[in-house]
């Protein structure tokens, strides 16, 4: 391109053609290599709408969960300065008015969730109590000045902007620049006085804007310390001391977000400071309970067609329980599985509500039908059909569509029965000692998803324990089951089950009425037929054995009392239910449509192992580069591999200190010979393992070098290394240093220290 300039230089040319650059939307990534098709778009939009529903659901029940603690916090804030507002000159109040009301909110160690909680909380406070809310982060507040700056900026800044927007003519003023504000509590107090006065005298615009808020004379100023632990103790102490000097003029309320335990307050604040506070403790919901609710609302429900397979659920729960306790991360993981399902499974097109699905089935193209025929579970299903139907299914698209529709409906019904029965089973097993099938319903659910639960040992031991239940316990369980069934959808099999349970319950109650007389009767019988008497008389050994056997048999087959018989009946019924309804989803045809089973993908994304990835990259470069030239077998590495891989491989065989010169020679040798390292490793292995005290890598290098010398005549004279090779070596070594495998050391000249151990 030409320029009119006479000087030499770099010129920027903007593209002249103003063709609209196509901005790729997320849906465009939803294909796999092929051109994007209508069904891809549909899948993406299904994903979006489904996720939207789930998100709304999550938010609504999270609000419900937090409602209690928020309510108590709000009332605490409201009441904290009630005396100041009412201006009652109460004696007892006057005596202790210098305390700053403080709410210590214990939120648990799941720090990622706190953000959301506090966001919601500050919104609530802003809506209902006061516009003056400031959130502080420990990271941003390393000095008192910063704390004050933040507070002032939030409070004053907001107000100034509002005024500018509403009454431009009155206030010419530019927004208060950060630098010019006298950054002290005195400014804040001046500001607050101004605020309360104007609202009292009532400028009309103000009143209109915030009449709801200003109803109370003086709205308190709420300062939220989101993460108390990360604040520096001195900063906090000074800030509190300053606040206490102004508490008469400013209705301050502090809120401490505590992740560990309230003792932290005592640890951070000396008595002189903590005596300035009036601390009240608020405990939030335990995160485990929170998770239980999330699982109940998102996973154990037929509301959403999407389901997780046992393995995926297991991965998500393990991350939660073992690593972070964070409900937010769990929900994110759930979202990722949802996305991954719609992205990777073409049949997820049908993962929507039944009505929608029937429409979509009608519009299926031939290719999609073929895809359905190749799904393993569908193939199994076809195999079970008679031959005529098989042919129809495999050749006639229309027939297939009808059948798919039916199958999807069956799947839906399967789920509708599945969860209530699962909950009933959980009611039964969760009261057992030692919880053979898990305390939480999630554990039971995972077991049920993965295998036939009635074949497990835990199941039989659970039923043995159930067989020993007392009357009242059993009645209580039955009642709970009935409640569970009542709260679920009312439809055919469930109603029957409920009625059956109710029948049982009735029988148990009747049993109670007639139990006393029954008991007497039994007692009589026992006396009558007691065989012990016969034992008294002398008999021979054979006779004795026979009697004992009989006794045993009679005891075993001894008529069960009516209660026992009934108990047996209940358990048998329960067992039948489990076998009928809690089949693992793999048995259902077309389960692939709604179940997401990519556990390893999810694990790779959510629980990454950087160390392993690094080692794989360095020792098996083919894995990531996918270059055929790099393909190698076993632990070997070709000389075409990137330099850093070769250097890494060589360094694995060294002890704690590595001689740089020998290392360079080793690299040169390895570059000269393809796939040499396999031999070399074998050879030098005995040198490096063993006691680990004297490892002689130098020797290994030397042998390699001399061996390669013999083979390579072109090589420059011994000890002289090509400059390019030298530079490549230095670069590779510094890359290794950057990755944290080695570091420079002063113990020995020309050596570097290894930071990792092991190597084979």
């Amino acid at each position, binding site marked *: 391109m030409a320029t009119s300039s006479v000087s030499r230089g770099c010129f920027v040319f903007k593209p002249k053609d103003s063709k609209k650059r196509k901005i790729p939307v997320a849906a465009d990534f939803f294909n796999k290599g092929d051109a994007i098709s209508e069904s891809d778009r549909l899948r993406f939009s299904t994903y979006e709408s489904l996720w939207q529903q789930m998100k709304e659901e999550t938010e609504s029940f999270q609000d419900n969960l937090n409602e209690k603690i928020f309510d108590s916090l709000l009332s605490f804030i409201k009441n904290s300065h009630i005396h100041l507002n009412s201006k009652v000159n109460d004696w*007892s109040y006057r005596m202790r008015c210098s305390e700053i009301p403080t709410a210590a909110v214990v939120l648990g160690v799941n720090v990622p969730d706190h953000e959301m909680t506090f966001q919601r909380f500050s919104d609530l406070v802003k809506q209902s109590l006061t516009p003056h809310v400031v959130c502080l982060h420990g990271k941003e507040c390393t000095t008192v000045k910063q704390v004050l700056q933040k507070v002032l900026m939030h409070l004053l800044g907001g107000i100034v902007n509002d005024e500018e927007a509403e009454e431009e003519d009155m206030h010419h003023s530019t927004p208060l620049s950060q630098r010019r504000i006298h950054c002290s509590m005195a400014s804040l107090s001046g500001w607050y006085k101004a605020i309360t006065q104007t609202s009292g005298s009532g400028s009309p615009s103000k009143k209109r804007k915030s009449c709801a808020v200003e109803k109370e004379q003086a709205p308190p100023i709420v300062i939220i310390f989101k993460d108390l632990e990360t604040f520096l103790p001195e900063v906090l102490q000074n800030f509190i001391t300053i606040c206490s000097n102004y508490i008469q003029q400013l209705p301050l309320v502090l809120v401490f977000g505590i992740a560990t335990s309230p003792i932290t307050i005592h640890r951070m604040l000396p008595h002189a400071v903590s005596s300035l506070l009036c601390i009240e403790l608020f405990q939030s919901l335990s995160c485990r309970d929170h998770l239980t609710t999330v699982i109940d609302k998102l996973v154990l429900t037929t509301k959403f067609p999407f389901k997780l397979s046992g393995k995926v659920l297991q991965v998500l729960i393990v991350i939660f329980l073992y690593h972070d306790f964070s409900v937010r991360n769990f929900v994110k993981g759930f979202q990722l599985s949802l996305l991954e399902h719609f992205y990777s499974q073409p049949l997820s097109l049908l993962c929507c509500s039944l009505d929608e699905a029937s429409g979509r089935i009608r519009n299926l193209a031939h290719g999609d039908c073929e895809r359905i025929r190749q799904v393993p579970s569908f193939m199994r299903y076809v195999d079970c059909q008679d031959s005529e139907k098989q042919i129809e299914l495999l050749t006639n698209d229309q027939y297939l569509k009808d059948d798919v529709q039916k199958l999807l409906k069956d799947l839906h019904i399967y789920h509708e029965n599945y969860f209530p029965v699962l909950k009933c089973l959980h009611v039964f097993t969760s009261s057992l000692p030692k919880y053979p099938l898990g305390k939480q319903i999630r554990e039971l659910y995972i077991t049920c998803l993965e295998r036939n639960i009635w074949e497990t040992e835990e199941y039989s031991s659970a039923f043995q324990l159930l067989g020993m239940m007392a009357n009242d316990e059993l009645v209580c369980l039955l009642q709970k089951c009935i409640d569970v069934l009542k709260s679920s959808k009312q439809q055919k099999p469930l109603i029957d089950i409920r009625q059956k349970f109710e029948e049982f319950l009735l029988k148990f109650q009747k049993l109670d009425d007639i139990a006393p007389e029954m008991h007497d009767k039994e007692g009589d019988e026992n006396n009558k037929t007691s065989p012990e008497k016969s034992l008294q008389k002398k008999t021979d050994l054979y006779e004795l054995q026979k009697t004992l056997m009989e006794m045993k048999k009679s005891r075993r087959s001894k008529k069960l009392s009516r209660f026992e018989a009934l108990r047996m009946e209940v358990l048998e019924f329960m067992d039948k239910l489990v076998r009928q309804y809690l089949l693992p989803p793999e048995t259902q045809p077309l389960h692939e449509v709604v179940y997401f089973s990519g556990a390893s993908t999810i694990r790779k994304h959510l629980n990454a192992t950087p160390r392993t990835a690094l080692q794989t990259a360095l020792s098996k470069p083919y894995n990531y580069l996918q270059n055929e030239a790099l393909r190698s077998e076993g632990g070997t590495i070709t000389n075409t591999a990137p330099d850093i891989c070769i250097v890494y491989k060589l360094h694995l065989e060294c002890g704690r200190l590595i001689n740089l010169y020998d290392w360079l020679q080793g690299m040169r040798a390895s570059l000269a010979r393809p796939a040499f390292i396999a031999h070399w490793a074998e050879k030098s292995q005995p040198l490096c393992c063993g006691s680990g005290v004297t490892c002689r890598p130098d020797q290994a290098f030397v042998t390699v070098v001399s061996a390669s010398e013999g083979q390579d005549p072109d090589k420059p004279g011994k000890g002289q290394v090509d400059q390019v090779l030298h530079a490549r070596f230095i670069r590779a070594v510094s890359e290794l240093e950057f990755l944290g495998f080695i570091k420079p050391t002063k113990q020995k000249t020309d050596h570097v220290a290894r930071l990792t151990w092991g190597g084979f």
Partner: protein
Amino acid sequence: MSELDHGTYPEDRILSLKEKLICRDLQILTLQSILGEPHHYSYPSVFVYGHTATGKTYVTETLLKTLKFPHVIVNCVECFSSKMLFEQILNQLQGHSLSLKNEYTSCLQSNTFNDFVLLYKQVVHKQNLHNQTVYIVLDKAERLREMDSNLLPGFLRFQELADENATVIFLSEIVWEKFRPGTGCFEPLILHFPDYNKADLQKILSQDHPPEFSADFYATYINILLGVFYPVCRDLKELRHLAALNFPKFCEPVQRGDAKEEDTRRLWRNIEPHLKKAMETVYLREISSSQWERLQQEDKEGEHLKGLSIHAHVELPFYSKFLLIAAYLSSYNPARTDKRFFSKYHGKIKKTSFLKKHEKTSNLLLGPKPFPLDRLLAIFYSIVDCRVTPTANIFSQITSLVALQLLTHVGHDDQLNGPKYKCTTNLEFITAIASEEKANSIDNRTEKRDFTASGL
């Protein structure tokens, strides 16, 4: 007070002083004689020290106010930079307050001590104060030591620097010896405020009796209160707080009509257990005063309101627990014992010699020692029974433990170069966590090893 020579001060002011300030006669006398009369040149700097709540600030403030001396009182905690300190003094001298009109800025900007001295002179002349002594009171003066190094010496000879009739009064809880800078400075006049004794406290506390009860009745109450609390607490503020909190309970029988105001014994019997309980909770700020009040109103004799310390338990994710245990072990066990405790084939160490060494100094008494990340992870992998893959989550858990202040990062070298940590939790906490894991039916072997390792 009759022997005090009040010089030329007006009679009514002296009277009001007497009324307001009790039990500090000697100090007031000294201060007054130092201050002299308005037009006198006073001593350049006065250093007043004494414990918390010995009336330093109150006496100085009341004295200056009642005698109508021009003065400025500045809290050094609030003014954390020298600029703020200067501006605050100038603002107060001018009677300038921060408001929306002046956009919350002070009228005079002064960044250095030199600016301050010049501006001060201007202001004093403008306000027509140059023919009388101006007092600058610096409360919590111990903070000056951490600020700019020229502040303290500068203020000590402020009279000389400004060439004005000014006196700086320092109020502090620390003795003057801790202030003296290395390079030497002007020595101020030192005045000590001793602690109040029991009789003084009784007198002062009895002063603020509520209007609806007689002074004698309140004095009886204070007497009982001091009987309980005086052995543990002599802080006037704290005592006053406690008095206010517990008084409603004390006068309850009187209001109900069960007892008369003179019925001291009965009242005493009523309030004494109550005060004892207050000592365990309110005094230590285990529960807040408002909660205490509510508790009184509900009048339930139970422990249904638990203090802050009760909630010591922290729920941690599975691996965090083990990381914390590993951190504790590596903090309190010498590294040489690791092989013995954590590797399967450690060879026999002579038990006697090992124990002997161990007995000399318990590691628990020596406090936590720093340990490198590698060691923490090695111990972690060895105490967790199942195989753990070193995922990113494990490393981020270490960081979050640091954020929760259960571990601390030692040294300021960068994270790449082998970071070192210390464990800050105590044995009790770790034992609780370890036993919790045991209850969750993880292998007992680990726990047993833990306890032997931690020297139990």
